[in-house]
């Protein structure tokens, strides 16, 4: 191991000594795969036969008309198998796991999307699979838990700490330090110790590569802006990386503004100034922590953005100004989602809808000759319980009450 994986001072690999050889092995396998063109071909073929890559770029005509500004194009990661961009990363790491000859995968999950994606990959590759999920999220995202279990994954509710994503990551590491010999930890976002941020971003780069080609083909020029929601940062890195060499394209990352500013109210590490630089979960970045360095509770209507840290690569892009970071509040998010569903028949996940909020605020200022791209990282089917609650849908509540009655009578 040598010191590596730094981005303007963010990142690194702060790992327990026991995992050093495991990370050396992973790094080697990743480098090797990256230098092997056949690997990328195999990956692209898998994603185009098992999932439906390239995913379409959809012109949102009605929303464009509503705001009377730039044309709004939507990159449809929601059409991936399992319903989110998470599939890209997971399938890539699945190929790598097989390459390393390992037979078991573990993963953490917040929204459950990465858990479902990992369980799916494990079923397809024939790996054993254990998913760690914060107890809070297990309840918030029960439908995803249901499908993970159907796929043969063991879902372990994590009861320590804040019982959300960060604690699931800790538990996954605790599993890994014990079972590294046969187990690969499929980290779900562009965070964690090197090489995860770089590796996950590489697998997600498909999004940006496709989006850039597609928008050029569609409009003959580059978009003015590209929007993505930011949890750990993988879908944002995926889209943004396609435009890093195009300084004229403004990159906008949107974090969870929750109930607004103030520690504990949100999960905005870069857009608000409640976060400070620290080192946890194996890497250095901005964390929502207190003076002593203890991680603090976060809040978001979307489990997938409800996380204390952020990709070290995005932290660097924040410092050097290449990416602008904004935050969207829970209420804005539910509105933007409802609007998108109503006007376009598209169902962005709650996480995704954060990106839509910011785009809606700004596209009006741009010219109709221009375009913007929003990354629809996932679909909201999984969010039906959360959305129904947010919208206080009485019919849904009636239905659940009736279902419960039915179960009570069976019991």
């Amino acid at each position, binding site marked *: *191991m*040598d*010191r590596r994986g730094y981005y303007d001072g963010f990142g*690194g*690999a*702060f*790992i*327990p*000594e*026991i*995992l*050093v*050889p*495991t990370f050396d092995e992973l790094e080697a396998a990743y480098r090797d795969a990256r230098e092997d063109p056949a690997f990328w071909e195999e990956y692209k073929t898998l994603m185009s036969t098992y999932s439906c890559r390239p995913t379409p770029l959809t012109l949102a005509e009605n929303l464009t008309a509503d705001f009377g500004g730039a044309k709004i194009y939507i990159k449809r990661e929601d059409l991936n198998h399992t319903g989110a961009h998470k599939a890209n990363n997971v399938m890539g790491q699945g190929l790598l796991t097989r390459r390393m000859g390992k037979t078991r995968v573990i993963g953490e999950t917040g929204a459950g999307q990465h858990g479902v994606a990992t369980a799916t990959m494990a079923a397809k590759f024939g790996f054993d699979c254990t998913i760690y999920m914060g107890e809070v999220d297990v309840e918030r995202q029960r439908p995803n838990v249901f499908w993970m279990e159907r796929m043969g994954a063991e879902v372990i509710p994590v009861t*320590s*700490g804040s019982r959300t994503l*960060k604690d699931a990551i*800790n538990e996954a*590491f*605790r599993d890994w*330090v*014990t*079972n*590294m010999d046969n187990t690969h930890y499929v980290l779900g976002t562009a965070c964690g110790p090197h090489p995860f941020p770089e590796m996950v971003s590489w697998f997600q780069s498909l999004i940006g590569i496709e989006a850039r080609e597609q928008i050029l083909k569609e409009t003959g020029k580059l978009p003015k802006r590209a929007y993505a929601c930011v949890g750990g940062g993988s879908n944002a890195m995926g889209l943004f990386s396609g435009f890093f060499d195009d300084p004229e394209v403004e990159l906008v990352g949107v974090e969870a503004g929750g109930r607004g500013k103030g520690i504990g109210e949100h999960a905005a590490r870069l857009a608000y100034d409640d976060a*400070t630089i*620290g*080192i*946890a*979960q*194996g890497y250095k970045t901005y*964390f929502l*922590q207190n*003076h*002593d*360095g*203890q*991680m603090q509770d976060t809040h978001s209507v979307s489990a997938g953005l409800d996380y204390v840290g952020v990709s070290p690569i995005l932290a660097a892009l924040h410092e050097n100004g290449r990416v602008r970071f904004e935050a969207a509040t829970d209420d804005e998010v539910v509105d933007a989602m409802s609007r998108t569903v109503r006007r376009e028949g598209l169902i962005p996940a709650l996480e995704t809808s954060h990106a839509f909020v910011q785009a809606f605020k700004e596209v009006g200022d741009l010219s109709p000759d221009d375009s913007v791209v929003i990354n629809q990282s996932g679909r909201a089917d999984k969010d039906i319980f959360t959305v129904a609650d947010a919208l206080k849908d009485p019919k849904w509540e009636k239905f659940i009450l009736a279902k419960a009655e039915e179960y009570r009578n069976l019991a």
Partner: protein
Amino acid sequence: MLESYIHQRRQDKDILLMTHIVLGYPDFDQSMKVVEEMVAAGVDLMELQIPFSEPMADGPVILKANSEALDHGAQVEKSFEFAEEVVKRFDIPFVFMTYYNILFKYGVGAFVERMASIGVQGAIIPDLPPEEGEEYLVAMAEHGLSPIHIFTPNSSEDRLKMLGEKSRGFVYSVARKGVTGKETTFGDDLNAYLGRCREATDLPIALGFGVASNEDVRFIRGKADIAVVGSETIRVIDRDGVDSVKPFIEELVS
């Protein structure tokens, strides 16, 4: 001087005992009592863990102790004050165990200086491999403090050597994979592994992870210099109360 203390002490003891506590668990008064009991029981040195909200390398027992300590307000400043007092009151060496973010947020230089000023002699930072620890290592050296690195069964010969060279005072060999507080089988593999540790460094070797009984300690005798008892004491205290610490320790080394 931590190293020389250990060598000296080994003259009349064939195995030393290092115990571990989580500062502020269940509260600082209890912690103080535990230290008193342990010193009275004759432990040779002690690990003081400053609680952290993300103790990635710790198992259920210490994990729980960390978060409860924090819930009861175990701030870093209080941990320093506690350490200062025990160093004054008891003449065995104390070392800190904590995660890197605690140092980083305090300021690595300031943290090490504070250690020096209160007389804590070394530190174990399980999430700080030497490659990431330059600033820390320099500061520790400046103040003549002991950075204690961790040997593992997975580490290559070269790496064990390197870790030994980066360490002062002693090295901490973990008996197995996994987190703290799980069972360990004391057998041939462990012997072989301890042999490899011995070859890799001249520093004293502390063996930790899963040391819980008199047999365990007896097994270690002659193969390592220090037996480390961590989670087990917390279990004992949770089960039988603070007063049970002394008899437990005495039984361990008897």
